[in-house]
């Protein structure tokens, strides 16, 4: 571990203190680490992770360390200093983009230096795969999709949905460190606090991993915004009967400036890309409006839309469970509705 060079942070030169005691793994001050990745930066999800980290560290009376893994620009560091008691940076040429084995090795090394009691990550697929393996390497315990976190008597308690959303469990993680991925956008975003002046750059010894080689990486995003950040979502299910009706739904979504999503049944059928899937094993979305068309509303689907402000549905079956989650709904064949609805919305939204 070496000290950071005096970096320009928001036009202020920050003087770095010598290694603070808590970095030496001493038990004087225990820490909670919130992990941010250089390739994502501080988006809504990262703010959620940092927010959860702030609250958990307060609960436990531990120090909150914001850890930046991967490319850490001065701007990113400056932004991160607003949300934690200290900042640690783990950058390395091999961490310019995500590689599962390399990132895992790096995180393990970093955590061994920081000696945290809890480590929080977000809920993208990369974070999800890192969590259990990191926990194993650190001899701790792990949980995923944490909705609520709390700390009591040096242990972390996690509330999460189980049985496809039919129940909620609170689980005590008795073996430290507790490594968690949290449902990031469902967490209150981090509050700004006094600017952090503690910045440590951690040195890493990494070697290229030759076991797993990335050959190609494709994004199939619908636009520039992530589905998770969409304000309006039009979503289709098995009741649509094929891929063609999705073009009608897209036309409807477009006039509202919205994005498209689907149930697992529609993705499984190959009608739309898997990235559109919303639910337990798909995206967790939180739009102002979620319009579910020909979706029954299985609990696993509802798990993905629990944070939507308004849910509305069009479904042939008045007993479809989706209506139990709707603010308003129309019982009708979608084929009679989608076209004229679009015409009327064009007028209303003009």
């Amino acid at each position, binding site marked *: 571990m070496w000290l950071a060079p005096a970096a320009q942070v928001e036009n202020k030169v920050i003087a770095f203190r010598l290694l603070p005691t808590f970095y030496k793994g001493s038990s004087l001050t225990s820490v909670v680490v919130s992990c941010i990745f250089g390739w994502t930066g501080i988006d809504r999800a990262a703010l959620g992770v940092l927010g959860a980290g702030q609250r958990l560290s307060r609960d436990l009376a531990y120090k909150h360390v914001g850890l930046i893994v991967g490319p850490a620009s001065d701007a990113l560091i400056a932004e991160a200093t607003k949300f934690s008691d200290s900042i640690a940076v783990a950058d390395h040429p091999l961490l310019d983009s995500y590689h599962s084995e390399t990132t895992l090795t790096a995180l393990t090394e970093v955590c061994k230096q920081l000696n945290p009691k809890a480590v929080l990550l977000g809920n993208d697929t990369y974070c999800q795969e890192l969590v259990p393996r990191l926990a194993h390497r650190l001899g701790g315990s792990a949980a995923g999709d944490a909705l609520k976190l709390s700390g009591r008597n040096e242990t972390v308690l996690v509330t999460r949905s189980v049985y496809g959303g039919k129940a909620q469990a609170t689980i005590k993680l008795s073996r430290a460190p507790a490594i968690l991925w949290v449902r990031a956008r469902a967490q209150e975003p981090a509050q700004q606090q006094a600017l952090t002046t503690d910045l440590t750059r951690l040195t890493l010894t990494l070697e290229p991993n030759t076991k797993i080689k990335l050959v190609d990486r494709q994004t*199939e995003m619908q636009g520039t915004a992530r589905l998770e950040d969409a304000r309006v979502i039009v979503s289709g299910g098995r009741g649509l009967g094929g891929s063609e009706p999705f073009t009608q739904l897209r036309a409807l979504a477009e006039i509202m400036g919205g994005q498209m999503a689907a149930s697992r049944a529609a993705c499984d059928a190959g009608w739309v890309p898997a990235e559109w899937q919303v639910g337990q094993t798909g995206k967790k979305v939180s739009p102002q409006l979620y319009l579910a068309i020909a979706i029954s509303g299985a609990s696993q689907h509802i798990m993905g839309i629990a944070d939507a402000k308004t849910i509305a549905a069009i479904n042939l079956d008045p007993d479809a469970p989706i209506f139990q989650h709707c*603010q308003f709904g129309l019982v009708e064949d979608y084929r009679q509705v989608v076209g004229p609805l679009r015409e009327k*919305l064009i007028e209303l939204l003009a």
Partner: protein
Amino acid sequence: MISPAKGLTHLMNILVCLKQILDPELPSRDFRIDAAGRDADRNTAGLVMNIFCANALETALQFREKHGGKITVITFGVPSAEEILRKALALRVDSAVLIRSDLSQRPNPWCIARVLAAAIRKLGDFDLVLTGRESGDWGDGQTGALLAEELGRPCVSLADELKADTVNTALVRIRRQTDQGWEALEASTPLVITVTNNEHNVPRIAKTRDVMQAFRQPLTTWSLAELGVDAQSISEDLACTEVVELAIPIKQTHCEWVTGETLDDRISLLAKRIATVVQSA
């Protein structure tokens, strides 16, 4: 055992890990919590093979059809878990192993990974170990990753396509899902892979004749003692997570039905309601 495709000299030895769970299709209104208040009441629905395990098995079967190889299935569970092994045998896997759980509590992923790793060491070398991405009951999504760590092997998660390399027999080509799309990877065996669903790995249905035959096929059954897993480690694993509360969430949304004389009226009203929400967004 299916012979290798032309040009391939090495037959992949594949293990697929299967878990039996309470049928996740059970409607919310019928879901109950058991008397101890720490798990679901198992009497409310049937027990089934976890869907992502079925996707993993389908992926393995397709791989064997194309490239040859051998498939073993394994489960760690109570005696009823034999059913899912019979299901897999009906799909013509080569062999099946049941590790009987005599634990007094539900094993967590840490304990399961330790037990599966012990069984894998006893069974011999596998080129590929496949698990589902997560279970439809507790939804931990950890067992595959922890198993990779127990075995000291790399892990690829959320795979939805698996192919052999035509030149290097120790390589596999994997497509896996990411948040934004997908990645194509080239990975060396031995390897642990967690499998997710896509349109190409929808589980096949067994032929009636094979279902009948599956009941007569031999099954390897081991107890934890026979595997030689260390009891102390198991109890440490079990103690690292504890369910302190399990509750059924109450929801109170009132759905306002969009009504009107004619269909046109109803669509007009729906449009107005939607426009109001969109304009406030």
